[in-house]
C-alpha cells in the first residue's frame, strides 16, 4: 500500500474509533433502516428524502467537524510536532482532507445501507439502486460543503471558516425564494458550480497558502494555473446552472412561459406541457390524443403523495388497452430528485419534471403549478378523451378502488 494510503488508513482508523462517530453510524443505520422498512415499496421517493436528510444532516455535521479537523495542527503548541514533519504542505492538506472525507463517507454509507436493507423485502433491487443513488447524491453535497469548510478554516486558521460555510448554506435554504437556486450546494443542477468552487478553494489552500506558509513555494506558476483553472470551471458551472433555469430550449422558444400562460378550467382543455422525463425524452399530453388522462401533479419528496404513484402504475397497467393514460408531473427544485424518481422509481407510466419549480410548499411556485392554478400539492386532474378537464382532485392519497371508480365513470361516458 502506498505511503499516502497508509496515512489515510491510519487517520480513518483513528476517526472511526471515536465513540461519538460510532454511535452516529449505528443510530443512523438502525434509524434509517427502520424508517425505510416502514415505507415499503416507495424506494424512489424515500431515496429522495434520504438524499435530503443525509446531504443536509451529515453535510452540516461534517462541515463543523472539518472546521475543527482543519486546524488541528495549526495550534502553536500541539500542532507544532506535525507541522515540523518533512511532508509537502499540499500533500499534507490533501491527506487530512481525504482522511476526513473517508470517515464521513463511510459514516454516510451506513444509513444508506440500512435503507437498502430495510426496503429490500418490499422493493427488491430497486431499493439497492435507489439508495446507492441517494448515497452518491448526498456524498456530492458532503464533498462540497466539507471541502469548503475544511479549506476556508485552514486558510483562516480558525473554525470560523466552517461556521461561515454552514451559515451561508442555512441562508440559502431559508431564503430559498430570494436566493437564486444556483447557490444551493445540494441541488444536483449546481454540481459543476460547486465542483469548481471546491477545486478553487482546494487549489488556493493546498497549493498556494499552505505551501507559502511552509516556505515551500518555489514554482508559483502551477498553483496560479490551478487556481485560475478552477475559477474558470466555477464560471462555466455558473453559466451552465443559470442556463438550465426555466429556459428549456427544445425547438419551442421559452416553453416555460408558454406553459405558465395557460389556465386550467373545468370543462376546458387541460394545459399542455413539454417536460423532460429524466431519461432524455419528453413527457407531453399531445401524443396521448383520444385517451383519458390522469395528470398527477406532486412534489418529488412528498412521501404521502408518493403512495399514489404505485396506484397510478397499476391503473396504467389495468387500463392501458382501454385508452386510459396516467401522467406524473414531478415538482422539484432539485433536478436530481426528478431524475431519481424517473430512473429509480420503477414506474411504468411517464413522469415529467417541472424544472421551473421555485418552491413546492404552500402555495407551490412552478410553471405547472401556475398553469393548473394549484394552491396545494398533490393535485389529480382527470380529463376526457378530448383532454377537457372533468375532475380536479386534491386528496393527499388515492386508493386503487377510488381511482378505479373515477376511471370507470369516465369509461362509462366515453367507452371509446
Amino acid at each position, binding site marked *: 500500500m502506498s505511503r499516502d494510503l497508509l496515512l489515510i488508513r491510519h*487517520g480513518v482508523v483513528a476517526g472511526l*474509533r471515536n465513540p461519538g462517530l460510532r454511535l452516529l453510524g449505528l443510530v443512523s443505520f438502525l434509524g434509517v433502516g427502520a424508517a425505510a422498512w416502514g415505507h415499503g415499496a416507495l424506494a424512489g421517493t424515500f431515496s429522495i428524502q434520504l438524499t435530503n436528510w443525509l446531504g443536509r444532516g451529515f453535510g452540516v455535521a461534517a462541515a463543523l467537524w472539518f472546521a475543527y479537523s482543519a486546524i488541528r495542527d495549526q495550534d502553536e503548541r500541539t500542532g507544532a*510536532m506535525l507541522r515540523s514533519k518533512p511532508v509537502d504542505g499540499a500533500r499534507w492538506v490533501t491527506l487530512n482532507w481525504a482522511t476526513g472525507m473517508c470517515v464521513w463517507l463511510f459514516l454516510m454509507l451506513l444509513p444508506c445501507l440500512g435503507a437498502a436493507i430495510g426496503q429490500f423485502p418490499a422493493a427488491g433491487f430497486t431499493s439497492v439502486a435507489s439508495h446507492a443513488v441517494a448515497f452518491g447524491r448526498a456524498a456530492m453535497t458532503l464533498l462540497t460543503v466539507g471541502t469548503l469548510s475544511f479549506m476556508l478554516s485552514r486558510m483562516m486558521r480558525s473554525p470560523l471558516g466552517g461556521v461561515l460555510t454552514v451559515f451561508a448554506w442555512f441562508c440559502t435554504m431559508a431564503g430559498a425564494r430570494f436566493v437564486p437556486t444556483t447557490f444551493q450546494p445540494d441541488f444536483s443542477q449546481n454540481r459543476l458550480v460547486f465542483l469548481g468552487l471546491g477545486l478553487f478553494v482546494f487549489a488556493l489552500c493546498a497549493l498556494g497558502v499552505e505551501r507559502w506558509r511552509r516556505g515551500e513555494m518555489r514554482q508559483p506558476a502551477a498553483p496560479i494555473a490551478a487556481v485560475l483553472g478552477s475559477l474558470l470551471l466555477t464560471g462555466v458551472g455558473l453559466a451552465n446552472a443559470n442556463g438550465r433555469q426555466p429556459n428549456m430550449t427544445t425547438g419551442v422558444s421559452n416553453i416555460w412561459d408558454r406553459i405558465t400562460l395557460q389556465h386550467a378550467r373545468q370543462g376546458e382543455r387541460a394545459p399542455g406541457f413539454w417536460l423532460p422525463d429524466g431519461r432524455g425524452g419528453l413527457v407531453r399530453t399531445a401524443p396521448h390524443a383520444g385517451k383519458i388522462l390522469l395528470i398527477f401533479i406532486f412534489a418529488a419528496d412528498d412521501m404521502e403523495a408518493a403512495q399514489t404513484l404505485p396506484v397510478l402504475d397499476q391503473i396504467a397497467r389495468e387500463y392501458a388497452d382501454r385508452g386510459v393514460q396516467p401522467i406524473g408531473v414531478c415538482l422539484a427544485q432539485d433536478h436530481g430528485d426528478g431524475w431519481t424518481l424517473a430512473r429509480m422509481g420503477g414506474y411504468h407510466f411517464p413522469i415529467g419534471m417541472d424544472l421551473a419549480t421555485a418552491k413546492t410548499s404552500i402555495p407551490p411556485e412552478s410553471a405547472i403549478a401556475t398553469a393548473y392554478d394549484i394552491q396545494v400539492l398533490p393535485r389529480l386532474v382527470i380529463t376526457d378523451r378530448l383532454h377537457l378537464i372533468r375532475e380536479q382532485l386534491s386528496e393527499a392519497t388515492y386508493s386503487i378502488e377510488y381511482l378505479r371508480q373515477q376511471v370507470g365513470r369516465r369509461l362509462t361516458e366515453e367507452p371509446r
Partner: protein
Amino acid sequence: MGIEVQDLCKVYDNRVRALDHVHLEAEAGVLGLLGPNGSGKTTLMSITATLLEPTTGTVRVDGLDVRKQKPEIRRRIGYLPQDVGLYPNLTVYETLDYMALLYNLDDPKDRKQRIERSLERLNLTRLVDRQVQTLSGGLRQRVALAQAVLSQPSLLIVDEPTAGLDPEERIRVRSFFADLARECLIVLSTHIVADIEAVASSLAVLRFGKLRYFGTPEKLLQSLQGRVWMVAMPPGGERPQLGEGFLETGLYREPAGIQLRGVSDSAPCVDAQVAVPNLEDAYVWLMTREEGAVVA
C-alpha cells in the same frame, strides 16, 4: 551536524520582542536552553524547527538556512514541542507508523525496524497495542520522544520534555538524552536546572529574549568558585545580618539546622562557609545581574 544562530531577533505582531540579538552555536552533545517562562526559549526552538520566521538574523542547521531551506531542514530534525499533539485513538505502534510515514520512511521493513528500535530505546515495547489516550502523561511523552527520533535526526529539538513528569520518569528521559547525545545534537529547553545539570554539555541562558550566558556549565560554575556561601540560620529562625550584595539562592534544611545559601563576592558574615557552586546558584545569579552582563 550543528546549529549556528547569528544576531537573531524575533519581534511578534504585537511588538513583543521575543529574541534580541541572540548569538550561539553548537555542534554536538546537549545544548541546554535555560530561562524563565517568556524568556524566548520556545521562540528560538520554533525558529530552528522552521515553524517561525525570524525577524532578522540567521539560523543555520547543518549549514542550511531556516529561511530558504525549510524542507531540507525538516528532513534532518526531530522536534518535540511542549504540548504533544498525538492522535488519541491510535495505538502506540500506529502512532509511530503514522509519524514514520510522515518522515517519508517508505520501505516497510526499514520503517518497522526503526519503530521497534525506538520502542525498545524508550522501553515502550510492551505498550504497542495500547491506545495513546489510555497512557499516562509520562508514557505519552515517551511516545512523543520515540516519534521524534524515528528518522535518526542530526538535530533533536525538545521543549520542556520533563515538565509535569514524576521523578522516575524524569530520570528515564534524561538518561535517554544522555545516551542519544552520542548520535546527534540535542537542543533541550527547560526551566528545570537539574535537567540541564545532568546532561547538558553546553548551556545558553536567556532572559527577556537576551542571551545572558553561553558556554559550558563548567565554565559558568568556575566563575562562581569561592563566591557561593552557606550561612547557618540561628535557632530562633531570625535571619542573620549579612553583608550587602549577598544574593540568596536557597534555604536548605540540614541535620545541623537551616542553612541559607547565596552568592556574594566576599563572605557575607564571619561564620559563613564557602560552598561548591551548582547551576541553580549560577542561574539565580545570572537572572539578577544587570543587563549587558553576559558572562560568555
